[in-house]
């Protein structure tokens, strides 16, 4: 290998090499950090929710007119929905999880008014709602039909005797692991007994760090609107949407449907900002890598053109074609490596800045070798074409005087 003479040649004509090395350094620094942020966002978007999002249709409707009866409407709608072939479960819920809207309050496991409460989303639902959500019970049971409070009872201040809570909330409220059968207290001191613990379920706001902390109370609150979860057999969701819509529209009830869509679409909207950031950064990565690749091709092509006679002379003196290819690839690798060394320092510097200024997480160091490897591969691929062209220069060029 002729690393020393190549390095010597680079150092004697350093302007182009330095500019390219700076470009590579900037690319590595930005790409590594961007890849890390994209990975963080995708991981954030792809978090397991505990809910069978892909097979659920979310429906909401609004009742109107004096003849509208909320409870009656819900019961008759659910009966109609459950009768549709392909529908596994249908249930009512006060708000949709992961929709960006919901109710939150502080809860404790003690009557001590000084005890620090734990924030959690809470919902009102019926027995069977956990099946419609597709969430799993880690312990305990679902509500009994007798436990479901009517709207009137809720309005009159009747407190639910039972509650389902998520495991994440149970661990916060009952660190000793004895949540099941114990009481959970609300802000007014009312208590409900934990009858079941849900393995995992996301609440309303995807950016909230208490997203996993959820309670479900048994009840059907008085409302002018209804919110249904229809869980279908796998793969049947899209086919069933028009049928579900048709069935509800045909029901002789004073109301109109204002939402009928796959739950995945609704959840997707909750992550729109994260997706925009991730997509934007992916575009930045692609652009930067492309521009740097073109920069490498440009410099390598320029050096090949500039050294046509030199290459011809080397060939005349006995260089095989692979010697010429290797020469240009090694030269490119050395320039790339100079950029990579500087870029590595810059990558950590940039991450330090974003971490301190924007509270972004600390860079996972594994992204740096991945970025370096990527830049090296890019360098080889970008320089391969010009290097191959150089190897095809005729040795007879050496004897040409022009």
């Amino acid at each position, binding site marked *: 290998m002729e690393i020393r*003479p190549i390095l*010597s040649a680079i150092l004697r004509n350093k302007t182009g090499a330095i500019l390219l090395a700076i470009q590579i350094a900037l690319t590595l620094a930005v790409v590594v950090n961007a890849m890390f942020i994209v990975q963080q966002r995708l991981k954030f978007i792809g978090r397991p929710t505990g809910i069978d999002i892909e097979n659920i249709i979310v429906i909401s409707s609004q009742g109107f007119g004096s003849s509208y009866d909320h409870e009656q409407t819900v019961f008759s709608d659910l009966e109609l929905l459950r009768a549709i072939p392909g529908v596994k479960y249908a249930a009512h819920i006060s708000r949709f999880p992961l929709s960006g809207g919901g109710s939150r309050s502080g809860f404790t496991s003690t009557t001590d008014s000084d005890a620090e409460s734990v924030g959690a989303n809470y919902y009102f639902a019926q027995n069977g709602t956990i099946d419609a959500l597709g969430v799993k019970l880690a312990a305990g049971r679902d509500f009994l039909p007798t436990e479901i409070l009517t709207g009137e009872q809720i309005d009159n201040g009747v407190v639910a005797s039972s509650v389902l809570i998520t495991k994440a909330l149970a661990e916060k409220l009952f660190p000793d692991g004895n949540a099941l059968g114990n009481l959970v207290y609300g802000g007014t001191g009312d208590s409900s007994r934990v009858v079941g613990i849900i393995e995992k379920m996301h609440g309303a706001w995807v950016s909230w760090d208490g997203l996993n902390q959820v309670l479900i109370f048994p009840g059907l609150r008085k409302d002018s609107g209804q919110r249904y979860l229809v869980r279908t057999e796998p793969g049947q969701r899209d086919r069933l949407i028009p049928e579900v819509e048709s069935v509800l529209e045909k029901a002789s009830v004073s109301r109109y449907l204002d939402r009928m869509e796959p739950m995945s679409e609704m959840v997707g909207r909750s992550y729109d900002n994260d997706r925009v950031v991730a997509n934007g950064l992916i575009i930045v990565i692609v652009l930067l890598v492309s521009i740097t690749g073109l920069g490498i091709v440009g410099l390598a092509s320029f050096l090949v053109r500039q050294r046509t006679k030199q290459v011809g002379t080397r060939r*005349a*003196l*006995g260089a095989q074609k692979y010697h010429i290819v290797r020469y240009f690839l090694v030269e490119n690798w050395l320039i790339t490596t100079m950029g990579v060394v500087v870029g590595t320092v810059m990558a950590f510097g940039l991450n330090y800045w974003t971490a301190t200024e924007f509270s972004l997480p600390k860079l996972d160091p594994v992204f740096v070798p991945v970025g370096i490897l990527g830049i090296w591969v890019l360098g080889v691929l970008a320089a391969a074409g010009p290097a191959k062209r150089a190897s095809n220069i005729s*040795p*007879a060029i*050496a*004897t040409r*005087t022009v």
Partner: protein
Amino acid sequence: MLKMNKISCVYQTDLIETHALRDIDLNVKAGEFVALTGPSGSGKTTLLNLSGLLESATSGTYLLDGEDVSSLSDRQRSSIRNEKIGFIFQSFNLIPDLNLFDNVDVPLRYRAMGIEERRRRIENALELVGLSSRMKHLPSQLSGGQQQRVAIARALAGEPKFLLADEPTGNLDSLMARQVMELLEKINSEGTTIVMVTHDPELARRAHRSIELLDGQISSTQLFGVSAEEPDEKTEAESVA
């Protein structure tokens, strides 16, 4: 050393066919010093390129050091160039970014040769051309004559069986041209076969034999001195002036 039989070289484009060489018969014996002369476009450089395996003939056979090299692969031709042939170019063709040591090292790097052996050869070659004290200099720090001596050292370091020189004094003033010519004569006297292209009749007369080309054919041959072995008289007899 070098034997060409009915060598022709035709350059073809879509519109034009140019006969650079037509049915050349040439025999150069080991130790001989042959000058190729002729006007521009007569085919001197093409013949030199074919001799040095820098390009291929369109037809004919070529034996180099007893081996038929007419139809070798690019890889084989490169190996032969590297091991058996030394090149001296009119414009020296030194690599401007490398110092003299590294310039002379260029052909040696293409051989499986240890660094110590390469160093010994480089130092000897630069010693021979009187530039051993300037090994770390760049070509741009030397005069034209010195650069051509470096090119000769580069050619000699590989210990080639024969040297091909393309107008080696073409870019030099008369004093430096004489020094370079004396160096080539010295190298030849030590047994290296030399084929040299030149426009200069004075220099051609210092070779053992001068072959004049005209329109791609040998028009005449002149004998000036005694070579290590006599040339193949049958091949050349017809065209001796």
